[in-house]
């Protein structure tokens, strides 16, 4: 297994399922039509394929197919939902509530809205990554138009109490939007049951292709509308102009159909593997799980290995194993993960974190290999670490005057 590449970064993107690729192929050449061409068989074939996909996707989240708006991905869907509601409901109010651990596609969109004169409340999360429902309810005001809370966090896998959030929003007559990118296709999601009015998600996190996403927009009770952010041909019920990515959409639909059928067995198998990985790595002293472990995606674990820096650690095994780190060094910003910091972790622990995200194609053999390789890496890095040595010598690290740089 020395030269094998093991992919444990499925929260970044998933491989496209070969069955999905197979479904897409005819729509590149054999059926090249534009789904908006109403006057010939090429267009009809494309439109029919899109309709089928729309059904498959709607079916996966308990929506009606007319409520699915195709986009280029979850980032666009987040932008369209939040900016679109802000503009459409301007007469009703200008206040949006979200939380500090959201994806940048939500946070940066909210920052832009603040610059345009909107008002945004960023709810803090508790140590386990969950929002406080009482705080959410208390934050709702007369001018609140939207609550935007992600379903499952990309870094920790922590799942927010969407049903309770939905009830609070319903009680106060406020729209609820959810970035469901990490949840859809992996755990059951029913937007109607949860009281979600807008939901963003994407194909490439659920074994579909990159470059195609969706926004669910509730059509009845209440009928929700968003102001289009792209001007053009008025596709997608006027909410998102642009020629539809037919092969991508076909793949998205196929991925949704497979997910619907196989989600339960995948989740069961992956939670066993994840637990094995997690328990194996927790054998290392001074390693801790970040985030709530009860309300968590079945395939994700985020672990901090104290006194070891994440990027350095990854370098010990990244010829074979792909994971992500909350360490600053993996991003251009030099700031460690804002999500982990929002959970109350110190910068040192955020620097020491690794996210493992398993997927449909992860095997037990790979997990066994990863436990061994990561454990060796942690031990190697600790042998090199002056702060590990101090910790072992009983030095109080808090008492040292570090030279911040």
């Amino acid at each position: 297994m020395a030269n094998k590449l093991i992919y444990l970064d499925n929260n970044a993107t998933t491989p496209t399922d070969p069955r999905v690729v197979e479904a897409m192929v005819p729509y590149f050449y054999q059926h090249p039509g534009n789904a908006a061409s109403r006057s010939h068989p090429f267009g009809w074939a494309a439109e029919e394929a899109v309709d089928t996909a729309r059904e498959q996707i709607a079916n996966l989240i308990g929506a009606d197919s007319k409520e699915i708006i195709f986009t280029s991905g979850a980032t666009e869907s987040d932008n369209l939902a939040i900016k679109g509601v802000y503009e459409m409901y301007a007469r009703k109010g200008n206040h949006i509530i979200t939380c500090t651990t959201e994806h940048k596609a939500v946070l940066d969109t909210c920052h832009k809205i603040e610059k345009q004169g909107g008002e945004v409340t960023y709810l803090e999360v508790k140590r386990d990554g969950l929002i406080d429902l009482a705080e959410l309810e208390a934050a709702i005001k007369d001018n609140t138009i939207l609550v935007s809370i992600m379903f499952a966090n990309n870094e920790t896998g922590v799942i927010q109490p969407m049903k309770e959030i939905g009830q609070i929003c319903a009680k106060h007559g406020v729209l609820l939007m959810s970035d469901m990118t990490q949840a859809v296709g992996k755990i059951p999601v029913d937007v109607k049951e949860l009281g979600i009015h807008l939901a963003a998600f994407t194909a490439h996190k659920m074994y579909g292709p990159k470059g195609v996403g969706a926004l669910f927009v509730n059509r009845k009770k209440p009928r929700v509308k968003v102001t289009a952010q792209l001007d053009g041909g008025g596709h997608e019920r006027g909410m998102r102009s642009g020629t539809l990515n037919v092969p991508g959409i076909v793949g998205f639909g196929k991925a949704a159909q497979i997910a619907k059928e196989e989600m339960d067995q995948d989740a069961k198998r992956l939670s066993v593997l994840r637990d094995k990985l997690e328990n194996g790595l927790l054998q290392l002293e001074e390693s801790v799980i970040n985030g709530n472990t009860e309300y968590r995606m079945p395939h994700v674990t985020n672990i901090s290995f104290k006194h070891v820096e994440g990027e350095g650690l990854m370098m010990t095994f990244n010829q074979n194993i792909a994971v992500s780190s909350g360490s600053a060094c993996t991003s251009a910003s030099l700031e460690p993960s804002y999500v982990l910091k929002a959970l109350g972790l110190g910068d040192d622990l955020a620097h020491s974190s690794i996210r493992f995200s398993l997927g449909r194609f992860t095997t037990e053999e790979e997990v066994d290999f990863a436990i061994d390789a990561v454990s060796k890496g942690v031990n190697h890095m600790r042998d090199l670490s002056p702060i590990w040595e101090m910790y072992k010598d009983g030095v109080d690290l808090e008492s040292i005057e570090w030279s911040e740089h």
Partner: protein
Amino acid sequence: MAYSDKVLDHFKNPRNVGTLNKEDKNVGTGLVGAPECGDVMRLQIEVDEETKVIKDAKFKTFGCGSAIASSSLATEWLKGKTVDEALSIDNMDIVEELALPPVKIHCSVLAEDAIKSAIKDYQEKNGVA
């Protein structure tokens, strides 16, 4: 981001990892960086009493691959130099030798700081201004 072969070599086979007795009069210790910043380097030198030549150097580093490589390289360069010669090691020499990208230049700065800090500690112990 790909690492240079030299960074990978120092990372995989770090030179002079270890700990010298910091109470020893001939040993100078520099501890720079902070866990919150994701980099801590401890660099130690042992100076020959007669010749003032650095006869041993050891390091331990908490940090990314470039930080480890920078400190490993620093210990290699320090050995055999006099204290005065060691003071002239510039962070840009490390950047050049390891082909560090711009986002990793701070690792070389930290290594230079660690060298200077270790020398300062040695000089203070031995009454050199």
